[in-house]
């Protein structure tokens, strides 16, 4: 039963979650110095990201609204179990996304710590965007609010501290892993709290 649901969640994973995941992963890739090998690849990647996300956004917003996810309200499954399955699918998708980027060898080699940081920040962005989507009045606002919130959090919180001597494409930064861990745990708790409390809104 659960395996069938998990497969379905992968198929149903919200496009906006993918957009947020993509945005946060690429953002962090650049910020942490995990930059493209060549400037041309960097520009090409950037154009690809922007155009694909605009394309996804257009498809997403032009699709007629359906009640496809509302069937979840009927199923005899605990809310926490549904949250757990969706979260599992989301995090696995982040890891797959990041692995594909690395396998394509478009970026410079990185350290395990930076890999871990990128995945943690991608995951926390994903959970944060899910929390925001519970309250956002429509999909477009949910996407823009999520990206705005993630950008502010990355730049304003002490998870990343900028250091002087900027060189190359990437910003020189120092990552504070403990802060990032706390930030990830908080975003997970926030998502769990809002999605179980406002269950109908969270799946609509």
């Amino acid at each position: 039963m659960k395996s069938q649901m998990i497969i379905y969640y992968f198929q149903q994973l919200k496009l906006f979650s993918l957009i947020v995941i993509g945005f946060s992963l690429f953002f962090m890739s650049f910020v942490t110095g995990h930059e493209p090998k060549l400037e041309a690849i960097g520009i090409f990647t950037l154009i690809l990201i922007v155009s694909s996300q605009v394309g996804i956004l257009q498809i997403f917003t032009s699709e007629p609204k359906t009640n496809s996810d509302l069937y979840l309200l009927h199923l005899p499954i605990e809310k926490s179990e549904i949250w757990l399955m969706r979260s599992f699918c989301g995090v696995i998708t982040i890891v797959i996304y990041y692995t594909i980027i690395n396998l394509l060898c478009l970026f410079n080699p990185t350290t395990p710590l930076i890999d871990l940081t990128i995945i943690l920040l991608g995951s926390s962005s994903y959970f944060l965007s899910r929390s925001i989507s519970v309250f956002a009045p429509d999909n477009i606002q949910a996407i823009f609010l999520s990206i705005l919130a993630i950008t502010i959090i990355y730049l304003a919180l002490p998870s990343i501290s900028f250091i002087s001597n900027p060189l190359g494409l990437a910003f020189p930064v120092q990552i504070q892993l403990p802060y990032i861990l706390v930030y990830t745990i908080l975003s997970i708790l926030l998502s769990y709290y809002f999605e179980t409390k406002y269950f109908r809104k969270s799946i609509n």
Partner: protein
Amino acid sequence: MNLEIKNLKKMHSPDLGLRNFSLEARPGEVISILGPNGAGKTTLIHTILDWNEKDSGKVTFFKGQNFKNHRSAILQKVGFIADDPHLIEKLSIREMIDYIKIHYIFWDESYELELLEKFQLDEKCIIKTLSRGMKTKLSMLLALSYRPDLLILDEATSGLDPRARHDVLEMLVEYCSEYNKTLIYATHLLDEVNRIATKVILLNKGEVALEASMEEIQESIFSISVDLLATLEESSYKKIVSLNDNKELIQFNQNLDSIPPSSRECLNLEEIYFALTQES
């Protein structure tokens, strides 16, 4: 008792929502929730199903279970059909059935096949290509095939043509009477209520304006003149609403023989509905 609600309150704004709603739904009962738009019908159903968080009150199912602690157990025994069916549009009918049935302990495959044949649903059809009526029938199949003890409908037949509506209602009445199940049914359609309900709850502006069995509506609710009412003992009736022409709509508790039949006017459900919702 399949459902017990005590003093349920859910307000969306100071003027919109549901106040002090109580209900006891027993096996075999068909309860119609009537009311104009904005009366609180959908708020009530969504709050019963825990889609809305209630402001106050208590909702319990099947000997004291509540959604906070027993969501999974309750939904094994509660079926819900919305006015706009909740289906996965890209799946075929067979795929949808197979996907849903794995979640239910008591899924009855022979009943599922019986309903497929009865509703003339083609298993290979993709759901998004189905008409509204066929989608409602599929929702009904999904909600009935695990033999729920309590079935809740939110204006589920409002978009159907008369033939489809008739078939669906026949099916529901048959299911409830044959298996002694409870049906709670929010609707605008008074003819449906007359046909299938055993009990009527009329909501107006978030409050219960009338709660009575169909027998009580036919036998103990009358309009009588204000002058005659003044001669009666107050304990023998309950005033429902003031009508035009110096008359009152009342529900008698006892001693009906003391009122001459010529002095009391029996109202049908439609007249009672309009009398109680006249301001809205």
